[in-house]
């Protein structure tokens, strides 16, 4: 029961942060995607299934407060998670600090790219084709750069916080001399 309450508090805090605080921060900090960082961290610390559950819960809440058709944010998060998981299995084999940073960069870039594809489709069907050219503009690419930096910065802090409180990433020695 306490665990559920803890999870609920974390979920509510992250959702509220993303909807009510993040968009109103000074311009340089608005690109932070805390839910994405959390999903990647949960996938890294626990398992991909845990990450999927968190991704669905986060995205479901965002979809309820979104102008885009229902499901677009769900797809965005889940597809990002699947791609990141695929990369992790194929290319990054250990759970080191560097592979976590690599995953965050890949996750931020994938999220941005999938988001761009969704926006293109949305603008296309809503007949706002002039917006499509702006998606791949230099300023939008600069936003991706900012997002990667911010996500990595917050991700690294969270990584060290988890590392401080748990033994998940610490080296473990098996003492064979003891009975």
């Amino acid at each position: 029961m306490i665990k559920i309450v803890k999870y609920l508090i974390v979920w509510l805090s992250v959702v509220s942060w993303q909807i009510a605080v993040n968009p109103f921060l000074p311009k340089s900090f608005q690109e932070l995607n805390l839910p994405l960082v959390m999903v990647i961290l949960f996938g890294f610390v626990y398992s991909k299934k845990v990450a999927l559950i968190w991704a669905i819960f986060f995205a479901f809440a965002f979809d309820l407060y979104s102008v885009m058709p229902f499901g677009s944010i769900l797809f965005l998060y889940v597809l990002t998670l699947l791609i990141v998981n695929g990369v992790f299995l194929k290319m990054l084999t250990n759970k080191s600090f560097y592979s976590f940073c690599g995953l965050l960069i890949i996750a931020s870039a994938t999220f941005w790219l999938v988001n761009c594809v969704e926006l293109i489709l949305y603008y296309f069907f809503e007949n706002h084709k002039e917006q499509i050219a702006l998606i791949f503009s230099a300023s939008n690419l600069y936003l991706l750069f900012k997002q990667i930096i911010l996500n990595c910065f917050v991700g690294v802090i969270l990584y060290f916080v988890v590392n401080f409180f748990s033994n998940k990433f610490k080296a473990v020695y098996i003492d064979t001399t003891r009975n």
Partner: protein
Amino acid sequence: MDMFFLKKHKSFSFVAVGLVLILIFLHWINLLKPVEKIFILVTKPVINSFYGLSNRFGNYYLNLKSKKELLAENKKLREDVAILMKGKSRFLSAKEENEFLRDQLDYVDINRFEPIIAKVIGKSTDQSQNSLIIDRGEDHGLSVGLPVLGEHGYLIGKVIRTNKKTAQILLINDDFSKISVKIQGLKNILGILQGRFGLGLVIEMIPINQTIKEGDLIVTSGLEENIPDNLIVGQIKSYQNSPEELFQSAAIESLVDFNKITMVDILKEKISTHD
């Protein structure tokens, strides 16, 4: 070993995508409505308080950063400008309405509309549109298309989506926003006010033979359903015209800071009891 993990990844992907598709399907057939209601019920108060907190900290940060006197002076000047513009609008509006009355004996009375005050609780997380989330919804009588006013009674947007307890408003500076407006005092000039990438406002398609000047007040035309006429939108900041073009365009400046909207008024038509 690798193959084993990749196979597992494949089945995991199928499950994940399947879950998303099931959720979309359930939403589509309205079977997910009770769950969505619970989600909104749980999240709304927390989001609301987070927004309040972020605003308080934002103001504190601003106070620290800027000198207090400068802020106070700026605020006072803004209020003075708003009062002057309101006065100008009222004067021009009354004059125009008198003429209109004499001509047709038929006008839209603003008293037909009642304001519903709502608090802004957040912003949509997707980047597709510049929209705000407010804490009033269908239960409070909101419906799609109603005009939304900000500080000093300026038009800031329209309701574009409603839930039971919340609603979303599309700001007028968004590209998707189109509002029929006129230039106050020159009653025949009508144009479409459009947002520009969430940064500014423009009116296009103003006939070239019409004279406009910087500082002209822009108000709603009243041609749209649910939106009464003479709601202040802003004033002309600059305009562009060339003799070979049929139409001219004008950049509009609103006194509302679209990044700091905390309270809004939604105008709803009063239900007449005389009919």
